Each structure stands twice: as C-alpha cells, then as structure tokens.
C-alpha cells in the first residue's frame, strides 16, 4: 500500500520546495530597493500594492523556470514504477525511492510537481520571446502605417483585421496539423533548406527584429559612419547567425537550434498576437503625431524613420510597456490554448497547456482532478501576476 503525507505537510512542502525561487525574489527585491529612485516607473512599483503582488508572482515563476533543475525532484518524463503511483493522490509517497509526489502522480506515474516546474521553463521562454518578436513586427509595420497613412496603411490594416477576424483556433488547426507542417527540403542551388508554411512564417517574422534594429542604427548614426558600421556589423552577424540556427536549423556553429514543433508554435503565436500590437502602435503613432515635438522634428528636416523611431517610439513607451506585460499574459493563454487542443509541442512535453489537455479526461472524478488542476492553477497565477503588474505599472505611469 502506498503511503500518504497529510494536507498540512503538502502545503508546507509546496512552499519550502520552491526555496531557490523565494530566495532569489528576496535578493532581487532587496538589491533593487536602494536603487528604486533610479529605476523609473519600475522603482515606483514598491509603492503600489497591486503592482508589487503582480511582480512577486511573475518573479516567482521566472526564478522557478531559472532554477527548475534545483526545484524539481524528478525529470519531466521520469516515471515511477512503484505500485499505486499512477494517478496517485497528492501527497503520495513512492515506497521505492522515498520521494513524495506532493501534487500527486499523473496517469503515467510521473510527478506532477516536477512537470509543472519544468513546464514553466517552456512557457516562460516561448511566451516572452514570441511577444518580443510580435512587438518588433507590430512596431515595424505599425509606425509607418500610423505615420504615412495612405495605401500601405490600408493594406496592413486589412491584413491585421483579417487575422483578427479569423477564428484563431481554426487558424492554429490549419497551420499546425501534421500534413501542413512537415518540412520539405528545397534546393536553393547553394544549399538546401527545409521548407513548410510554418517555417516560412517564422522565416518572415524573424526577419523583423533584424530589419528593425538595422533601421534604428541607420537613422540614429547616419552621420557617424564608424559607429554605424560597428552597430550594423554586430546586429547583422548576431542576427543572421541566430536566424539561420532558429529558423532553418542550420547554424554553422551548431549551438543554436529549435525543435521543429517549437518553431511551429512560435510562429503561430506570433501570428496570433502581432495584429494586436500593430493596432495599438498605429493608434499611438497617430496620437503622438499631433504633438509639437514631432512638428519640430519635421521642421528640422529629420527623416520620417528617424522621427518614428527616435521621437515617437520613446514617447509611446509608457502605454507600450503596460501593453507588453498584458500581452505576455495573453500569449501565455494562446500557448495554453494550443496545448489544450493538442496542437504544437510534443504530446509528452510538460508545458502547462499540454498537461491540462492530458488531465482533461480525468477531471470528472473527484480522485483524479489533480492531473489538470495544478497546471491550470500555475498558468492562472502567472497570467494573474502579469495582469496585476501591468495594472500597477499603468497606475504608476499615470502619476507622471
């Protein structure tokens, strides 16, 4: 017969097992406390209770992801072979190894606690990175759309509205089905690259950060040729290296690579969230365009792209930072939706959406609800933290 520990012990262990995360939060907040005057709006978060609560939630998951190997007691795919561990209730103790499964075991006798902890790594890697790239896409297209208006605005707005009007799940289904995502080798003469629609989308989206950064350096250091050359060279070398490794899995050094499944999910999530960024950037640009400093820059004879990137964008940063926080949460939800429908990552992957999907058939029995409940609560607490943080930031930035 398997042994169990009591509810009090489960709660205690659920707190103490995260000690590296708690320690890291304490250190971070302690170090930033004396510097709060210099941190701008982030430093003023110390004064907002809601923002602080959100920050702690977010930092908790960030540090859990960073120290996942120290916090998790087992690997994400490790199974227990002791009797009774399958779908074991929370607090069940493995009689062979003596390890306590504080959040229970799943239907393959894996430790749900360890899987949730390892899953945080996937979620916290993909969601912010995808949001960042979606931002680059949204900024590169939204700034000129709001600045120039005209036909380019009409076309990009039409595309954004098209994607927003699409039932997003249908789009995900169509893009991530196995038939669509199998890469075909395409011979380009010099070398062969794998090609499929998701890879093509990723190839398009990953170009935007490089274009965006290059345009920034071009406009800023146009007169200072030496500095421009250095910045451009660094951006292009690093960017193209990451590009070849991440998109086409053909990094010449063999360091950077991405699972094809992860790339698909990445591309799908960027596609889903960039139209929203586009709209907000376009709206902000149109608003800021009416300010005097933009008129002053225009009179000075600055180029349009300089005005967009170095006059309008820095002045839009307040709302954009808030929206960025909200959007990471939204991206996390999208990622979970993909997992929930079993699209995207490998079925055994410990990301929270896939775990919820696997636990879903078991939620109707009171004894097996923990399979889906714990990853669901984890996802909710992360998104809640991001939303609270965004709310705190908004309140603090309104005080200016």
């Amino acid at each position, binding site marked *: 017969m398997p042994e169990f520990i009591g509810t009090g012990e489960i709660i205690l262990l659920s707190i103490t097992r995260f000690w590296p995360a708690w320690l890291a939060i304490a250190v971070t907040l302690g170090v930033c406390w004396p510097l709060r005057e210099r941190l701008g709006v982030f430093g003023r978060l110390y004064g907002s209770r809601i923002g602080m609560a959100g920050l702690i939630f977010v930092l908790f998951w960030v540090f859990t992801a960073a120290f996942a190997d120290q916090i998790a007691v087992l690997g994400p795919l490790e199974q227990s072979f002791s009797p009774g561990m399958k779908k074991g209730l929370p607090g069940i103790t493995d009689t062979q190894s003596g390890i306590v499964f504080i959040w229970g075991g799943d239907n393959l006798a894996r430790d749900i606690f360890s899987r949730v902890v390892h899953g945080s790594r996937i979620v916290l890697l993909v969601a912010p990175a995808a949001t960042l790239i979606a931002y680059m896409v949204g900024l590169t297209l939204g700034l000129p759309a709001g600045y120039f208006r005209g036909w380019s605005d009409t076309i990009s707005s039409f595309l954004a509205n098209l994607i927003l009007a*699409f*039932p997003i*799940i*249908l789009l995900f289904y169509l893009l991530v089905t196995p*038939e669509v995502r199998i890469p075909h080798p395409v011979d380009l003469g010099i070398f062969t690259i794998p090609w499929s629609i998701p890879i093509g989308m990723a190839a398009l989206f990953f170009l935007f950060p490089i274009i965006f950064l290059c345009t920034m350096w071009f406009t800023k250091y146009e007169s200072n040729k030496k500095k421009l050359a250095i910045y451009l060279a660094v951006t292009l070398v690093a960017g193209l290296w990451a590009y070849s490794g991440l998109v086409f899995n053909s990094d010449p050094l063999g360091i950077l690579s991405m699972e094809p499944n992860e790339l698909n999910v990445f591309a799908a999530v960027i596609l889903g969230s960039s139209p929203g960024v586009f709209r907000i950037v376009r709206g902000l640009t149109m608003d800021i365009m009416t300010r005097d400093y933009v008129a002053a820059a225009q009179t000075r004879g600055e180029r349009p792209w300089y005005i967009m990137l170095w006059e309008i964008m820095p002045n839009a940063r307040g709302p954009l930072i808030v929206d960025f926080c909200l959007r990471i949460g939204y991206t996390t939800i999208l990622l979970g*939706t993909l997992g*929930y429908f079993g699209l995207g990552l490998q079925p055994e992957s410990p990301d929270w959406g896939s775990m919820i999907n696997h636990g*879903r058939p078991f*939620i109707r029995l009171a004894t097996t609800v923990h399979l889906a409940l714990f990853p669901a609560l984890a*996802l909710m607490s992360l998104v809640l933290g991001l939303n609270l943080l965004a709310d705190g930031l908004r309140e603090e930035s309104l005080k200016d």
Partner: protein
Amino acid sequence: MFIFILRRIGAMLATMVAMTFIVFYLVNLPGNLEKIAKTESNMRMSDEEVASWLERKGYNRPFLVRYGEWIAGTVQGDMGWSRVFRKPVREVVGERLGHTGILMFWVMIVMVPSALTIGILAGMREGSLLDRNLSVASIASTSAPEYVTGIVFTVIFASFFGYMAKDVGWWPDWLVFKGVAKAGKVTVENFTLPVMTLAIYGMGYIARLTRASMVEVMTSQYIRTARLKGLSFRVVVLKHALRNALITPFTVIMLQFPWLLSGVVIVEAMFNYKGFGFILVSAAGNNDIDLLLAISWVAVIVVLLTQLISDIGYAYLNPRIRVK
C-alpha cells in the same frame, strides 16, 4: 452614414474572399488531400492509387477553377457536403449554430448585467475599498482563460459536489451540476458550468472598461454641477452618469464576439457541447473541406456584422459622432 455602411460591407466581402481563399489553399495542400483520399477510400493506398483517386474525384483540376466553383456554389446556397457528418453542410451548420446561439444568449444574459454592475459600483467612487476589491477581482477573472476556469468549476461543482452528494451524503442534489452539457437541453444542471465558464472570462474585461468609463464620467464637469446643485449621490449616478458611462461598454460588448467565438470552441470541447465550436474542431481535425470553408465564412460574418452594429450603435448613442 449610408456610404459608411456600404464601405464596411465592401471591406467585409473582401475579408471573406481573402479568408476563404487562405482556408481553401491550406486545406488543399498535397498532404491534406492525401489524407482525404486515404480516409475516404482506403488507408493503405499506394501513392499511385492516391493520385488516381484524386484525379477521379476532380481534386487535381486547377486550384482557381475549383475555388471559383466553390464560390459559385456558395452564392447559390449550395455549401457542399460534409464528409465527417455525412450531411449537407448547410444542415450541419444551421443546426449547430442554433445550439451555440442558445449558449451565447445565456452567456450574454449572465455576463453583461453583472459586468456592468461591477464596473459601475467600482467606478462610482474611485479608489474606495469596494473599487479596489472589485478591480482586483476583475483582473483575476481576465487572467483565467476558459480552459482554466472550466477545469476549476468542473472540479468544484461537478466532481467535488457530486462526491459530497453521492458518497458523503450531506449535500443537496440540486447544487450538483453536470460536467457534460448536452446540446439543446436548457436546464440549470446542464447549462450552468459552460455559461459560467464563458461569462467569467469576458466579465472582468467589460467590468474594467465600464469602470474606466464611469470614473471618467464621474470626474466630469456636469456631474460636479449636478452634485453642487444638491442632488443626491444616487440620483447623480443613476440618472446623470450612467447613460454616458455606458456608451463605451456597449460598443465593446459587441466587439466581444470574435473572442467569444474562440472561447466557445474551448468550452464546447471541454463540456462536450455539440455546437458550432464542436464542429469546428471535428472539421479541422478531419480536414472536412466544405465544412471548414463554411465555418470560416460564417465566423467572419458574425465577427464583422457585430463590428458594424457596434459602430452604428456608437454613432447612434453618441450624438457628437452622429453630427460629424
């Protein structure tokens, strides 16, 4: 106004054509066609047999010709045949859209009044204890996507309460809800969980917007004048502030439809409710071409029509825009 509506309808048609074109392209990729051939006739067909089957069924004709045929058929009201449900697409979509419509109706009935109430209560006294509590609650509700709240609700209201009622025996039976919702049976037991799950996620969002709009109205000049004239707080809120504060939420409620649509897919899959979202999942999973195309344009019409209604309604409610 008339020109505005015409232009909107033109954009809508363009969106529909573009979207069905994309869907048509994706479902007709070679891999997908091969899957159709294999599921329709024989899973173990060789590549040559697949090619000849596709040739025979007319899938090898030029892409644009077949797309044109599909458009011609749809315009005449013939949406084609659903392979998964073995019925004409028109029947499948009509029936299931009805089921989802009933669900949406109840969601709106629950969501809109409660969200507006929360928003107005929070916004009428900015910074009060009630405001802070309600705001945090709204943020929490927008942080929980449907697949999280659905699971939490099922766990509490179906699994745990069911266990309490059946095995422990001291829990009223009427407080046990079903974790599975049967389409077309509108009962409390059947509908509570899906409606609650769908309503909660949107509720926080609308409540926050209503709060922001209410706060703005409450700080405006005419409200101060009304207060200074000696009107009671209740009269000021109910008679003067409310009307103006509700303009923004109204338009946003209509814009919730695209988002409700994807929520519906999640909830219908979770509660096994056989509605529009359920056929979307089965059609997408089985590459049911005609059904997928019909679903996508029906969805687009719903989304864009609600946008149109929201714009017209906004112009109607807000005289400042109407005059322009």
